[in-house]
C-alpha cells in the first residue's frame, strides 16, 4: 500500500470515532548524503522512508502512534484513541479551523535527490580542491545532504492536504593546525530544494580556508563586556536563539510567570526593532503553505516597533491562550507529533549603514559567521565563527572565535543600531524536543549591541 491509498482509507474511518480530534500524517521521503573528510569522498548514501502516525485528543489527553508499516491502520487509530483516553483528566484543547482539501504542488524545479551523484560529487570535489589549495591547511570536512518529502495530512474535521518539499544543505569546514593547535572555519548554506543555490561558492570557500589558517596566529579576546557588532548571519542566529524560542507559545502557555513576562504589548526593544517569523515568506527553507496541523501559514510580527505583538502557535497553544492560529506546528518526520517551531525568522532592515555603525566604536568586537547557538529562554549563548577587534571605528586584528552570552531581555534593549542590509541565512537547522535538524532560515541586517558579555581569557 502506498501513502495515498493509506490516506484514503484513513479518511474514511476518521469521523466514526469518539474523539475531540484525530489527525494522521503519512509520508514518503528520500534523501541522499555525500560526506568528505580530508581529500576524498568518505561516504555516499541514499535512504528512503515510508511511514505515518495517528494522533488523537480524547478528554484533554493526547495519544500518539507512529509506524513504518501501513497495514492495519484501523488498529493504529484505535490504539491512539485508547492511549489518549488513558491519560484522562488532561486539559488539552485545540483551536479548530475550517477544513481544507488541497493538493499543494511545490515550486521544486528539480527534485535534488534525482540529480546524478556524479554531478553532486563533481561540484563538491571542486570545493574540496579549493580548500586544499590553501597552504598550511590540515584538512577539510564537507557534508552535503538533500531530501525530498511527499506528505499527507488529514484530520477528523475533514481536512486532507497533500504537500511536498525539498531541501538542500551544504556545510564545508576548513581545519588548520599548528603545533597541537586546531582552528576551524565553516560555511553553511542551503535552499528549499534548488541545487543551483549551492553552486559558484569557490571564492567564499577559499576565504574560509584562509581564515582558518590566519586564526592560528590570532590572539584570544579578553573576556568581558564590549560593544559588539554582529554580521547578518550571526544576528540571525541571535534572533532565532535568543528571542525566537521564547516566542514559541508551548514554552509559555502553561507557565503563568512566563505568560506574564511575555504579555503582548510589553516593550522589548527600541522603536527601530521589528522581528518577523513566517512560513508565508516564499522561497526559503522554512517556507510552506500549510503547517503539520493543516493550518495555513502566516507572516507573524513577533515584535513591531519594539513592542511584543505576536507569538508562534500550534492548535493547542492557540486554544489555551485564546490567540490566533499562526501555522507554526511542525514535525521533523512522521516519527514525532507536531510541536511549535519557527519557520523563517528575521529582524527587518533598518537604516544604518555598516560604516556608520562602527564609526564611533573606540574598542569593540565585530563578530561574523555562525558556529552554533543555544538558549535557556532567559539566557542565551551563541558562537561566532570569526571575530575581529574594532578600534577607533575601523575593523582591526583578527581574534580567535568568541562565545557571546547574555540575558535576552536586556540584550534586545541594548541593540542600538540596525543595519540596512538584511540577509537571510539558509544554512541552519533547529533542534527542539529531540526533533533535529528542522529546516528553518533566519536573518538580519548588521546589528550593534551595547554591553555584550564575551567569554575569553
Amino acid at each position, binding site marked *: 500500500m502506498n501513502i495515498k491509498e493509506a490516506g484514503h482509507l484513513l479518511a474514511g474511518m476518521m469521523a466514526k470515532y469518539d474523539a475531540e480530534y484525530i489527525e494522521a500524517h503519512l509520508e514518503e521521503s528520500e534523501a541522499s548524503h555525500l560526506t568528505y573528510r580530508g581529500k576524498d569522498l568518505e561516504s555516499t548514501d541514499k535512504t528512503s522512508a515510508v511511514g505515518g502516525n495517528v494522533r488523537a485528543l480524547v478528554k484533554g489527553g493526547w495519544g500518539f502512534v507512529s509506524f513504518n508499516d501501513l497495514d492495519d491502520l484501523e488498529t493504529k487509530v484505535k490504539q491512539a484513541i485508547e492511549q489518549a483516553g488513558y491519560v484522562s483528566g488532561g486539559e488539552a484543547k485545540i483551536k479548530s479551523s475550517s477544513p481544507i482539501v488541497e493538493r499543494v504542488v511545490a515550486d521544486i524545479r528539480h527534485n535534488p535527490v534525482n540529480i546524478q551523484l556524479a554531478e553532486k560529487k563533481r561540484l563538491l570535489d571542486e570545493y574540496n580542491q579549493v580548500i586544499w589549495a590553501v597552504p598550511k591547511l590540515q584538512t577539510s570536512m564537507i557534508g552535503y545532504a538533500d531530501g525530498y518529502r511527499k506528505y499527507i495530512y488529514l484530520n477528523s474535521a475533514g481536512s486532507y492536504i497533500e504537500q511536498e518539499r525539498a531541501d538542500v544543505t551544504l556545510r564545508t569546514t576548513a581545519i588548520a593546525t599548528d603545533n*597541537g593547535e586546531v*582552528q576551524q572555519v565553516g560555511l553553511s548554506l542551503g535552499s528549499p530544494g534548488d541545487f543551483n543555490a549551492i553552486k559558484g561558492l569557490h571564492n567564499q570557500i577559499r576565504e574560509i580556508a584562509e581564515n582558518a589558517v590566519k586564526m592560528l596566529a590570532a590572539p584570544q579576546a579578553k*573576556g568581558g563586556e564590549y560593544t559588539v557588532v554582529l554580521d547578518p548571519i550571526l544576528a540571525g542566529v541571535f534572533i532565532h536563539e535568543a528571542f525566537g524560542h521564547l516566542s514559541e507559545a508551548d514554552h509559555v502557555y502553561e507557565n503563568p510567570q512566563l505568560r506574564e513576562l511575555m504579555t503582548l504589548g510589553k516593550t522589548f526593544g527600541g522603536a527601530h526593532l521589528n522581528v518577523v517569523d513566517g512560513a508565508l515568506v516564499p522561497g526559503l527553507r522554512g517556507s510552506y503553505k500549510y503547517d503539520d496541523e493543516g493550518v495555513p501559514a502566516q507572516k507573524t510580527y513577533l515584535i513591531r516597533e519594539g513592542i511584543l505583538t505576536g507569538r508562534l502557535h500550534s492548535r493547542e497553544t492557540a486554544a489555551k491562550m485564546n490567540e490566533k492560529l499562526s501555522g507554526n506546528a511542525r514535525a521533523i518526520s512522521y516519527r514525532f507529533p507536531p510541536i511549535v517551531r519557527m519557520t523563517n525568522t528575521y529582524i527587518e532592515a533598518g537604516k544604518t549603514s555598516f560604516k556608520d555603525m562602527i564609526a564611533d566604536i573606540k574598542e569593540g568586537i565585530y563578530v561574523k559567521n555562525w558556529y552554533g547557538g543555544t538558549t535557556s529562554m532567559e*539566557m542565551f549563548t551563541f558562537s561566532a565563527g570569526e571575530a575581529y577587534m574594532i578600534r577607533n571605528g575601523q575593523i582591526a586584528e583578527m581574534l580567535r572565535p568568541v562565545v557571546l552570552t547574555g540575558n535576552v531581555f536586556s540584550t534586545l534593549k541594548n541593540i542600538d543600531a540596525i543595519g540596512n542590509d538584511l540577509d537571510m541565512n539558509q544554512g541552519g537547522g533547529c533542534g527542539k524536543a529531540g526533533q533535529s535538524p528542522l529546516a528553518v532560515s533566519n536573518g538580519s541586517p548588521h546589528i550593534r549591541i551595547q554591553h555584550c558579555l564575551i567569554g575569553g581569557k
Partner: protein
Amino acid sequence: MEEILELARKVSDEAEVFMMSSEEAPVHFEANRLKAIQSKQSASVSLRIIRNGKLGYAAASGQIEPRKLVDIAVETSEFGMPAKFSFPSAQDFPTVKILDPATEAVSIGEMKDLGQKLIEPLVKSTEGILCEAEVSRESLTVRISNTRGGRAQYKKTAFGLGVSGTLVRDTDMLFVGEGQESCHPLRDTKAITDIVLRQLELAKNTATVSSGQLPVIFTPDGVVSAFLPSLMSALNGKTVLLGASPVGRRLGERVFDPRFSIFDDPTLEYAPNSRPCDDEGTASRRTALIEKGVVKNFLYDLQTAGQAQAQSTGSGCRGRGGLMSPSPSAWTIGTGEASFEDMVKEIKEGLVIEQLMGAEQGNVLGGDFSGNVLLGYKIENGRITGRVKNTMVSGNIYQVLKEVVAIGKEAKWIGGGVCAPAIYCSGLSVASK
C-alpha cells in the same frame, strides 16, 4: 533479510544487511500533569556492499523492494570509498546482559504512577515550579548478517525516568533536572527527586563571583557538559585519521593528569548502551582510551581502523542516516579519592558547575570550551552560598585537565552513556557581569 543478502551477493564482492526494529512507549508529563501517551514502532534495514573494492550503501525505513535497495547500494558504490576491510566472519561474542523481560512487563498504569512520583515531591517543595517528566520503556531487536558468514542477533530492553523543573521569578529562570536509564525497570524515583531537591535547595539564594581566574569543581554533569564534546572528538579514530585530533600523534604520551582515565565499555551489565557486538558485528570489549593520563587508544570501526592500520575497537555505530562511524558506548571516567565536601571545603572563592550552556559550540576540535553557567553555585570560604548567573567560564581541556586538583571518589551515571566523577580544577577563566 536473506533475500536481500542473496541479491546483493550476486552483484558485489561482499555484502552486509543490518536490520533494526524497535517499539518505544514514552509517557509524557507537562506542566505537572500527564499529557500524552505515545507508542513508536519502527523498522529499518540497511545494506552495505563492497563492489569492485568500493563501499556502497543504502538504507530504508518502512517498506522497500529488496531489488531497489540493492540497486541503490550499487549506484552509490560507483563513488564509494575504497573498502579497507572485510566484513567479519562468524565470531564469538561476550555474554552481555541487556534484556530484562520485567521491563517489557511494566504497565502503562505503573509508568503513570512513576511519573507522578517524579513530580509530586518537587511541586510540594517549591511553589510555582513547573515540571516535565518522561517515563519510557523500549525494546529493540538488532540483526546483522553478512556474506562472509558473520551473524549477530540480540534483543534488549531500556527504561528511562527523567524529570526537569522550571522556576520563573520575574525575568529570572532556574532550570533543574535529573534522569536515569537502564535495561532494568527503574522504580526508585526518590533517588532522582532527591538530586533535584538538592539543586533547588542550593539555588535558593543567588550569589555573584568575581571575574578572573577561579577554582572550579565540575560535578559529574558539569564534566559532561564542559569536557565531553572535546574528549569525544579527540579520541575518535576518525578525527585522529584526519590529523585533527590534538592527541592523535601522542599515543603512549602523558597528556592529562596521572589520575585521569577514560574507558569505553559496551559490556557493562544492563547499561542502556551495552551490546554483545557493535553495529557491524565486531565483538564488544572494554577499551582503555586514557589510562593514568596517558593516551592509550582511539575508537575505531572497521573502515577507520583499516585506514589507520589499527584494530577495530568494536565501536562501529550507525548514526543518523545509518552511516557507520566510530562512536562510544559507555564512557567511564576513572574515580579519584576526594569527597565532594572536601573539595568544596578547600575553596575560598570558586564555583561548582553542574551545567555549562553552549560549551560545545566553540572550537571543540582544539579542546576549547566556553559557556554560560546554566546551573552552578558559588563557593565562599568552603561552603556553597548560592546560585550564580550571567557568568561565562572558559578554558581548554588540554590545559585544564593536564593537572587537576582532585577527582571525586564517587561516579555518577549521566543518562545512559557516561559515568563520571566530579573534577576539581584550578584557575579557570571566569567572566561575570
